């Protein structure tokens, strides 16, 4: 991955060089996310760990911000990577794109340093503008918000002009529409209000309409691209599926927003709307799962019929992660989301480790997987090899990270059950109810297992980085 900075096989394709720059920062931030997660997990078991030095709130804030930002980096990288294939032309304003990359990276560095070194400020507007906004996921101070909007506009301008200049495929059409919505929604999170209900109402517009609508559609477009790229799947069929997925994802996801409006002060009608539409949200995820596996099996069968031996996928580690995406998206976002989406259940599960369990598996299954897959596609391109095969390290990365995240999810689900039954159903919430549940032996055991599984995930991450750094060269040597 690193050795390909200067000596890549992109043949002067600047868009792909830029994509690799985004991927590199993404993987570093992914590592930061995992380290912060480990600190926060340890603090659950050893409460004195780094107390009043690097508190849970700080570790957790950097944990979730690194998550969002590495994913945005990898998403932007993926678009810059696939655009030359899809449009058939070089990205139009590549210099501007590079400038935006450096501005964004400088801004992210400053924001993270301020989070870590300054942490909190006095209760004034200047804290919100300069230190942190204190709203989960959207902690970035306002100056950075504005910077992010500018950078995203530059990125979008690049995508749009390249789309207009080149071939207008279905995948590009979906991306152009989806990215506009994605960028525009960020604005809904950029104001201050004294009214906490109003605050959370618009806050969910950003969070939910990103991760349960526009990001999901984005993943659909990436999966479509990957199927064509890796398997030579037929574009007409893939794009038809893509439009069906867009229909189902937006059809359920937009009004599925209602499941965040059950208890924040908003009217009761959101119970019915939220329950109905969010219950439908797993449907497109099943469709995506079937689609990926069907295309894979079909192309593999066709290759076998032609008398070809071995895997049909030209990049088996990427294919592995994309299949894991199909499965993980359905399991993490679909099943684990549906578990607690009905208001009758959610009134007990809302604000417990149940949500954390769902969050871990969903972000991993729906997004981390496919973005890692795109990084492998990027590396294959950078080294210009016809085929790239999984090796021991690639397999260890896939197995350990997936097993680790699944383990954390199960542990947090058990912890969540404990909280739901003891803290909520039996004791009825409150300070004392909370701590009674936190001190139950089964809850503590669950937190211990979560930490162990977090370490497993981190070991998998080490394998992943090692593999990303070496697999390209290996594939090149094997090709000779």
């Amino acid at each position, binding site marked *: 991955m690193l050795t390909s900075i200067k000596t890549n096989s992109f043949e002067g394709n600047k868009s792909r060089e830029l994509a690799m720059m985004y991927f590199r920062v993404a993987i570093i931030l992914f590592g930061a996310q995992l380290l912060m997660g480990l600190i*926060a997990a340890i603090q659950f078991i050893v409460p004195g760990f780094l107390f009043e030095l690097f508190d849970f*709130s700080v570790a*957790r804030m950097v944990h979730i911000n690194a998550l969002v930002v590495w994913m945005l980096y990898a998403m932007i990288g993926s678009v810059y990577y696939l655009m030359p294939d899809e449009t058939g032309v070089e990205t139009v304003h590549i210099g501007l794109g590079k400038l935006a990359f450096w501005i964004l990276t400088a801004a992210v560095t400053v924001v993270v340093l301020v989070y870590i070194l300054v942490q909190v400020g006095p209760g004034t507007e200047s804290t*919100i503008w300069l230190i942190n906004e*204190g709203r989960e996921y959207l902690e970035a101070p306002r100056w950075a918000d504005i910077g992010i909007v500018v950078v995203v506009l530059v990125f979008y301008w690049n995508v749009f002009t390249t789309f207009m200049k080149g071939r207008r495929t279905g995948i590009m059409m979906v991306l152009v529409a989806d990215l506009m919505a994605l960028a525009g929604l960020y604005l809904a999170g950029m104001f201050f209000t*004294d009214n906490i209900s109003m605050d959370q109402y618009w806050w969910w517009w950003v969070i939910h309409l990103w991760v349960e609508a526009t990001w999901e559609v984005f993943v659909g477009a990436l999966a479509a691209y990957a199927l064509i790229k890796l398997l030579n799947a037929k574009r007409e069929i893939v794009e038809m599926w893509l439009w069906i997925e*867009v229909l189902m994802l*937006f059809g359920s996801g937009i009004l599925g927003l209602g499941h965040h409006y059950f208890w924040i002060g908003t*009217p009761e009608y959101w119970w019915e709307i939220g329950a109905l539409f969010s219950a439908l949200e797993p449907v497109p995820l099943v469709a995506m799962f079937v689609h990926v596996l069907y295309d894979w099996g079909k192309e593999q069968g066709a290759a076998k019929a032609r008398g070809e031996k071995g895997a049909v996928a030209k990049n088996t580690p990427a294919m592995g992660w994309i299949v894991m995406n199909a499965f993980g998206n359905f399991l993490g976002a679909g099943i684990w989301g549906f578990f607690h989406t009905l208001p009758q259940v959610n009134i007990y599960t809302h604000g417990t480790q149940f949500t954390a369990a769902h969050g871990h598996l969903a972000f991993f299954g729906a997004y981390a997987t496919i973005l890692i897959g795109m990084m492998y596609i990027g590396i294959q391109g950078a080294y210009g090899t016809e085929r790239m095969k999984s090796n021991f390290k690639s397999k260890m990365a896939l197995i350990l990270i997936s097993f680790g995240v699944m383990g954390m999810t199960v542990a947090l689900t058990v912890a969540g059950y404990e909280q739901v039954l003891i803290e909520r159903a039996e004791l009825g919430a409150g300070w004392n109810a909370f701590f009674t549940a936190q001190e139950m032996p089964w809850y503590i055991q669950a937190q211990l297992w979560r930490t162990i599984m977090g370490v497993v995930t981190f070991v998998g991450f080490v394998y992943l980085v090692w593999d990303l750094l070496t697999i390209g060269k290996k594939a090149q040597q094997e090709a000779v």
Partner: protein
Amino acid sequence: MENENLSVWTSVPFWRRSAAWVTGFASMLLIWLTFDSVGQITMGNDADLQQSAKEKRVVKRVPGPTVINYTIGYEMSAKRGHEVPTIGAKQLFFGKEWSEEEAADLLHLGKLTSQAKNCMNCHTLLGNGAYYAPDLTKSWLDPAWQAGGPLQGMTGKSTVEEAMAEFLQHPSQYPTHARMMPNLGITADEAKGLVAFLKHMSSIDTNGFPRNFSKTVEQFKRGGSNAH
């Protein structure tokens, strides 16, 4: 396939158009519902509160800042099938009654401080946030902070607001569990603002969340499991 178009079910233009229509329809519906919801969750004013106190119910889902001048309850409503906040008699807050302007300023300071101190990355507010520390939605009503409760007792103060403010300024002086709240440099004024913010939040009609909160009260009265 686009050219042959043997069946509408395999037609790309059909699915593209359907996707656009469904997305458009869902978005329009969301925007329409947003107008209604935003109207319903806009903060009320002092007149609404006086009406609420008279009728013993919350007229606005999100009451105005002067709600800090009233006693707040959380009672089972037979009609709605869950607990709802109630507005009761007038009650001094930090020893005085706050004008509309003063109360609004105090709430503003409190909300700003809640963000500046990053409360949400340990606690949950209205159930959203992190799960490291107790939910704060109804913390104002928590029996542990009331007269005779262990949290009020440990601070040596005689009102809920003073006890909470004292704790917020020196949290690590009052450890209740091995997991403690860190010192965040909260000033006396900021602490007052935060308590106003918490009291205001407890008066929001959250459709019965957290359910069975009154069980905590009953259990507490029985001597409950506060022993450990």
